[in-house]
C-alpha cells in the first residue's frame, strides 16, 4: 500500500502537449479515478504511472520513492488492461503465476498464491483452462487475479469494464468495489464512464485536453463542479444549463427564466451575482431539482413553482423524465411517474434552486465560488 504523488507531470510528442502539467496526490489506500472524454490524456497519464511511457517533465512518486525514471517492473505495481491482455498460450494458473515466476518466487509459494487468488475471485475451477475457453467476465476475473497475485503496492485499472456487456459491467463494478474494501490497496482507475467514476471512487480527477479540470470526492464533483465541462460531464442525465438574466429584487439578486411565462427564481449566493446584474449567466440545475410540486417542500426557501410547456416525456420506470424548453435551452426534469405530464401541455413544476450553481456564459467558469 502506498500513496501516489504526481507532481507537475508533462508529456509531449514533438510539438503536441498531451499532458499539460498534472498535479494529483492521493493517500495510501485511496481509490482514484481518472475520468474524461477520449483523447483527454487519461490513458497517457496511466501509462506514465505504470512506466510504460516516459514523461517529459515532472515527477511521479509512489510512497516516498521517486519512480519517474524507474522501469515498469521495479515500480511494484500491477495493471488490469482493457483487452485483459491474458497470455493466450498459458493456462489461467500460469497466467496468474507468471509475474511471480519472473520474480523468481519458488514453485510451492507460487502455487499457494495462485490458490489464494483463485479462492478470492472464485475462479478455482478455471485454473486449468486457457483464456480462449473463458467468457468475457471470466477473463476479467483472471486479469484481476494476475494483478492480485503479486501483492503490489498499487493497482492500475485501464478501462477494465468497457468490453463487458451492460449487466456484467454492473456486477463487476460491485466486485471491484468489494475487492478494494477488502484489500484496502491504492487503486488508480481510468474510465470514460462517469457512472463508474461516481460509484467506485474515493477521489475523481476529471480530465480534459491534458489538464485536470477538478480533483475531488464524487459528491464534491457532483455538487460543486468548478466549470461547465465538469458539470456537464458528471451526472446522467446531464445537468441543465439554463440561460438566465440576473435581476435585482428587494435589494438582492435573483435570476429570471423564460419558462411558460417569465419566472424569477432565487439563488443561494445572490451576492456573487452582483457583478453580472442585468446580464445573462448560465444557471446549472440538476434534473432532480425540477420536479412535480411536492407538498412537503412548499413554501421553503429557494423553492418556486412555475408552469412549463412539456415537449416530450420519457418514462424510465422509477422516474419519468420530462423534457421542456426554458429560455431557449432544453431542460430535463425528473418527475414522479404518477404526475400527469403530457407532451404539448402546460403543467406546473417545482424548481428547487438550493443546490443551483451559476456559470459565466463566455468562460464557462463558476461564478458563485
Amino acid at each position, binding site marked *: 500500500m502506498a500513496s501516489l504523488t504526481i507532481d507537475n507531470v508533462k508529456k509531449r510528442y514533438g510539438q503536441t502537449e498531451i499532458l499539460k502539467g498534472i498535479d494529483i496526490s492521493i493517500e495510501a489506500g485511496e481509490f482514484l479515478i481518472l475520468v474524461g472524454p477520449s483523447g483527454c490524456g487519461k490513458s497517457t497519464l496511466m501509462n506514465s504511472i505504470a512506466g510504460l511511457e516516459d514523461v517529459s517533465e515532472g515527477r511521479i512518486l509512489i510512497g516516498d520513492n521517486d519512480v519517474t525514471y524507474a522501469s515498469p*517492473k521495479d515500480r511494484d505495481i500491477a*495493471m488490469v488492461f482493457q483487452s485483459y491482455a491474458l497470455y493466450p498460450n498459458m493456462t489461467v494458473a500460469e497466467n496468474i503465476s507468471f509475474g511471480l515466476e*519472473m520474480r523468481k518466487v519458488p514453485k510451492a509459494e507460487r502455487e499457494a498464491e495462485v490458490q489464494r487468488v483463485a479462492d478470492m475471485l472464485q475462479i478455482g475451477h478455471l485454473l486449468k483452462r486457457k483464456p480462449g475457453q473463458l467468457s468475457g467476465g471470466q477473463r476479467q476475473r483472471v486479469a484481476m487475479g494476475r494483478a492480485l497475485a503479486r501483492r503490489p503496492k498499487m493497482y492500475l485499472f485501464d478501462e477494465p469494464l468497457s468490453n463487458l456487456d451492460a449487466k456484467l459491467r454492473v456486477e463487476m463494478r460491485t466486485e471491484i468495489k468489494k475487492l478494494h474494501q477488502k484489500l484496502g490497496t491504492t487503486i488508480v482507475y481510468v474510465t470514460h464512464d462517469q457512472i463508474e467514476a461516481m460509484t467506485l471512487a474515493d477521489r475523481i480527477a476529471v480530465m480534459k485536453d491534458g489538464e485536470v479540470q477538478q480533483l475531488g470526492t464524487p459528491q464534491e464533483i457532483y455538487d460543486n463542479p468548478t466549470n461547465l465541462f465538469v458539470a456537464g460531464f458528471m451526472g446522467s442525465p446531464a445537468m441543465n444549463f439554463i440561460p438566465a438574466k440576473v435581476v435585482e429584487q428587494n435589494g438582492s439578486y435573483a435570476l429570471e427564466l423564460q419558462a411558460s411565462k417569465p419566472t424569477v427564481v432565487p439563488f443561494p449566493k445572490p451576492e456573487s451575482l452582483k457583478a453580472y446584474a442585468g446580464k445573462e449567466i448560465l444557471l446549472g440545475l440538476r434534473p432532480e431539482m425540477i420536479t412535480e410540486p411536492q407538498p412537503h417542500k412548499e413554501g421553503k426557501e429557494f423553492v418556486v413553482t412555475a408552469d412549463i410547456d412539456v415537449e416530450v416525456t420519457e418514462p424510465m420506470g422509477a422516474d419519468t423524465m420530462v423534457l421542456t424548453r426554458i429560455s431557449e435551452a432544453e431542460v430535463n426534469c425528473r418527475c414522479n411517474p404518477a404526475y400527469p405530464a403530457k407532451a404539448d401541455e402546460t403543467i406546473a413544476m417545482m424548481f428547487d434552486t438550493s443546490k443551483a450553481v451559476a456559470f459565466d456564459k463566455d468562460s464557462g467558469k463558476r461564478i458563485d465560488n
Partner: protein
Amino acid sequence: MNNNAAKAGSGATQAGRPARLSLADWMPKIVMAPTAVAAIVCIYGYMIWTAVLSFTNSRMLPTYNFVGLDQYERLFMNDRWLVALSNLGVFGGLFILTCLFLGVMLAIFLDQKIRAEGAIRTIYLYPMAISFIVTGTAWKWLLNPTNGIEKMMIELGFEDFRFNWLSDPDMVVYCLVIAAVWQASGFVMALFLAGLRGVDSEMIKAAQLDGASIFTTYRRIILPSLKPVFFSALVILSHIAIKSFDLVAALTNGGPGYSSDLPANFMYAHAFTRSQIGLGAASAMVMLGCVLAILIPYLYSELRGERHE
C-alpha cells in the same frame, strides 16, 4: 389482401419462371464446368494414371502389364533413389529450420518500429517473386569456385580461401540449402511479421509489468501465441522442399554425378529421359505420399478449427 396479390402475381408468371430460374441456376455450373473438368482430368486423372502405371512394368511407353509392387521394390534397391531421399532429408530439414529461424529473426527485428521498414520488407520479400530457375542460375555463378565468391576472396588477397562446395559431392546439397533459404526466408518473415502485428500490444505491456525481459517476452509469450503461423510456414516450406526440382536443375543439375539429386529430379530423369516410366511413377507416388503425410493433418486441423469457431 397483400397476400392475395402476391399469389395472383406468382400465378401469372408461373409459366415463364421455372425455365428462367433453371437457367440462372445452371449458369454458375456451366461457367465453372471447364475448370472443373480440367482439374479433374489433369490433376486427379493423371494422378490416378500415375498410380496405375507405378504397378506396371512400363518403360518408354505406358503399358498395362501389372507386376504388383515390383517397381517399388526396385526403387528402394536403387542407390540413386536412396541418395535422393537422404538429400531430401538433409535439404528439407536444414532448409525448413534455417528459413524459420531467419524468418522469425528478421520479422522480430523489422517489428521494432524501424525506419524505412516498407523498403526493407520489400527487399527481403523480393527473392520470393523470382523463379527458382533464376535463383539457381544466379547462385551457380556465385558458388562456382572458378568465377564466384572463392575467386573474389582470392583476388582480395585471401590466397588460401576455399569455397568449393558446388563441386564437392559431400557438400553440394548445402549449396541447395543456401540458395533455397535465400529465396524463401523473406516469405517466412512476411508471414511472421503479419502475425507479430496481430499481437495485442497490451499483452506486451502486461509482460513488461510482470517483469519479463524482452527475450523472455518473445520466448514465453509472443512466439507461442504465433503457433498457427509456425504451422502454416512449416507446411508451405515442407511442400516446397519435397517438390523442389527447378532449383536442382538450374544450380547443380543433380551433379557432381547424382550426388545432389532430389526425388523430383530422380522422377524426371527416370520417367522422361531414361525410359523407366514405371519406376518414375513409383517414385512420384512416394513423393505424393510425403506431401499428403504433411497436408492431411494440416487440412484436418484447419477444417476442424473452422468448425470449432
